[in-house]
């Protein structure tokens, strides 16, 4: 009898251990969800606040050299991860403003939407490419799919507001590097248009494809006291 009881005890001990292990695993997975959906947002929020303050301070100081014409930004002066411009998506809501950082590494994108090094600067001839998170780290491009042709995307630099109008949305494969060409998907051609390309992952919580929103510069507007581009009025 004692042998049977010992075997039963051992089984009970094993099952209890297994049960505790499974419950622990479940709690860890839940904690991971909390981390991804909440904690990453807190991180980005704090980073964006810091970047925004830095930008405001930089822009308040006199420019390093005369900056007169639209599309002139001294990107050479920016380090990876530094803020280079503000991006507004006014049709998605008043709060839809983010600081764009230089670079698209994992670390850069944790701070905010990232500008592909080497692509055009705000307002310049060519193709400015910006990528951003869809679901975590503040999810700046969460609702990019809701942008329709004609919707405004505004970039703010030290000296100008650049209002771009969305021309179209496409779904591409993750290796569609042609989207970053100065003339998209025509490598080697010389650009004449001033384009802005926004990319994010698609569908949400997946990386099967990329969502690409393309916009064309409508008008640059020199900044000044009380100057607000029409697309941002009423904010």
């Amino acid at each position, binding site marked *: 009898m004692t042998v049977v009881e010992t075997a039963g005890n051992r089984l009970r001990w094993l099952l209890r251990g297994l049960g505790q292990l499974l419950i622990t695993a479940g709690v860890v997975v839940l904690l991971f969800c909390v981390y991804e959906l909440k904690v990453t947002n807190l991180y980005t929020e704090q980073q964006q606040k810091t970047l925004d303050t830095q930008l405001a301070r930089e822009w308040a100081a006199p420019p390093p050299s005369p900056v007169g014409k639209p599309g002139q930004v001294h990107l050479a002066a920016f380090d990876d991860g530094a803020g280079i411009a503000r991006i507004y998506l006014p049709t998605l809501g008043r709060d839809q403003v983010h600081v764009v950082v230089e670079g698209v590494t994992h670390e850069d994108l944790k701070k905010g939407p990232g500008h592909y090094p080497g692509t055009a600067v705000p307002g310049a001839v060519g193709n400015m490419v910006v990528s951003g998170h869809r679901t975590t780290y503040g999810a700046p491009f969460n609702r990019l799919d809701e942008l329709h042709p004609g919707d405004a995307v505004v970039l703010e630099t030290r000296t100008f507001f650049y209002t771009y109008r969305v021309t179209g949305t496409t779904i591409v494969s993750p290796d569609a590097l042609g989207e970053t060409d100065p003339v998209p998907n025509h490598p080697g051609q010389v650009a004449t248009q001033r384009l802005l390309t926004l990319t994010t992952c698609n569908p949400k919580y997946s990386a099967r494809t*990329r969502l690409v929103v393309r916009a064309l510069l409508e008008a640059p507007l020199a900044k000044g006291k009380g100057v607000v581009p029409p697309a941002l009025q009423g904010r």
Partner: protein
Amino acid sequence: MYSWIWRHLPGPLAVRLGELVVLLAAAVALLFLVVFPRVESLLPYSDVTVNQQPDTASPSP
């Protein structure tokens, strides 16, 4: 597992409870600060750029 830990915590009940909280906090901190950031970079939904090979799990840019 948990009963084993509980049995091996020293001190009276109140002290044990305190120790339990510290242990829990340490476990959560380890997960949030070390484990999750690493796991996350292996997951697909932080891939937002268009310069990746389609069939690699690599999280780089």
